[in-house]
């Protein structure tokens, strides 16, 4: 989330803010639907991914590994590793939301980058506004993400051979877009470049899918020791 962007003061503003985040992020759903079809999943499976997994980067990773010829285990591991950050978001949101039972289950399901990000951006407005931001954004993204996944999947299905329509380049381009949002410092850019070089170097030596998961080692190696504050 861009914490420097303008923060809404009123609930009307919060609604518009949540909606614009939901719509922007939801549009990625088109790319996911298309990527999923290109990887060989059906329209139904693509839609179930967005309904049930509902965490974009993990979904892209799962279909991406399958598309590159990786095993099911490699696809599931890559997706699961990418989803671990949602546990940290849940930890931050649970004391704020104080939900129980079914509501808590739904809250957990919509605990993603955007719902957490919007909630945290409302700290100065108080807990009630933070809660509102979480629910509005979480449910908004859920709506648009699923709608656009269906559109993307149906569209890609009509097109046929993925390569002849360039869809196989759309997937890495979508990953690059997701990555781009996260590269907020030179240190993080360096980690990204190091991960890319590492993946290139080990690709010829490992079965498909494994180089992707192995890139986690770069994160472990860099994050193991505390570092000086970076630019």
């Amino acid at each position, binding site marked *: 989330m861009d914490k420097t962007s303008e923060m809404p003061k009123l609930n009307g503003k919060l609604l518009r803010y949540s909606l614009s985040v939901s719509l922007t992020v939801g549009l990625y759903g*088109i790319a996911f639907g298309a990527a999923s079809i290109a990887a060989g999943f059906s329209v139904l499976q693509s839609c179930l991914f967005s309904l049930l997994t509902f965490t974009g980067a993990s979904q892209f990773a799962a279909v991406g590994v399958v598309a*590159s010829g990786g095993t099911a285990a490699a696809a*599931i591991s890559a997706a699961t590793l990418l989803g671990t950050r949602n546990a940290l*978001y*849940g930890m931050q949101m*649970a004391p704020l939301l104080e939900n129980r039972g079914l509501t808590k289950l739904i809250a957990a399901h919509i*605990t993603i980058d955007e719902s957490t990000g919007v909630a945290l951006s409302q700290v100065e407005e108080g807990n009630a506004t933070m809660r509102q931001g979480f629910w509005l954004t979480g449910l908004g993204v859920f709506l648009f993400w699923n709608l656009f996944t269906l559109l993307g999947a149906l569209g890609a299905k009509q097109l046929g051979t993925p390569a002849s329509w360039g869809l196989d380049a759309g997937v890495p*381009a979508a990953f*690059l*877009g997701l990555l781009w949002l996260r590269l907020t410092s030179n240190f993080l850019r360096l980690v990204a470049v190091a991960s890319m070089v590492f993946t290139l170097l080990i690709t010829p030596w490992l079965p498909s899918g494994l180089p992707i998961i192995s890139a986690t080692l770069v994160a472990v190696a860099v994050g193991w020791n505390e570092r000086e504050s970076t630019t």
Partner: protein
Amino acid sequence: MMWTVLIFTSAFALLIKLAGHYVPSRWLSNPRLQRINALVPIALLSALVVAESVTNKARLVIDHRLAGVAVALAALFAKLPFPVVVISAVVTSALIYHLH
């Protein structure tokens, strides 16, 4: 294969989310774990960009996809919106695929 990936990916994704809401926060508050966790998406997304643009199985391949990704990179530098980034990559890649 497809259903296996779908079912397990979804189940683990939900379990992780539920863990965050139910597990006592001190379990996950280890600073080392948090530092690594913050870097994991960057490492994995970077690896996925490479895997999807220049590899085919265990081989490095330069083809139409890389051209598309290069154009996407240029679009990101130009601060163009996400749909434009993806569409420019798709169009470039398709053109080169057909010219080839």
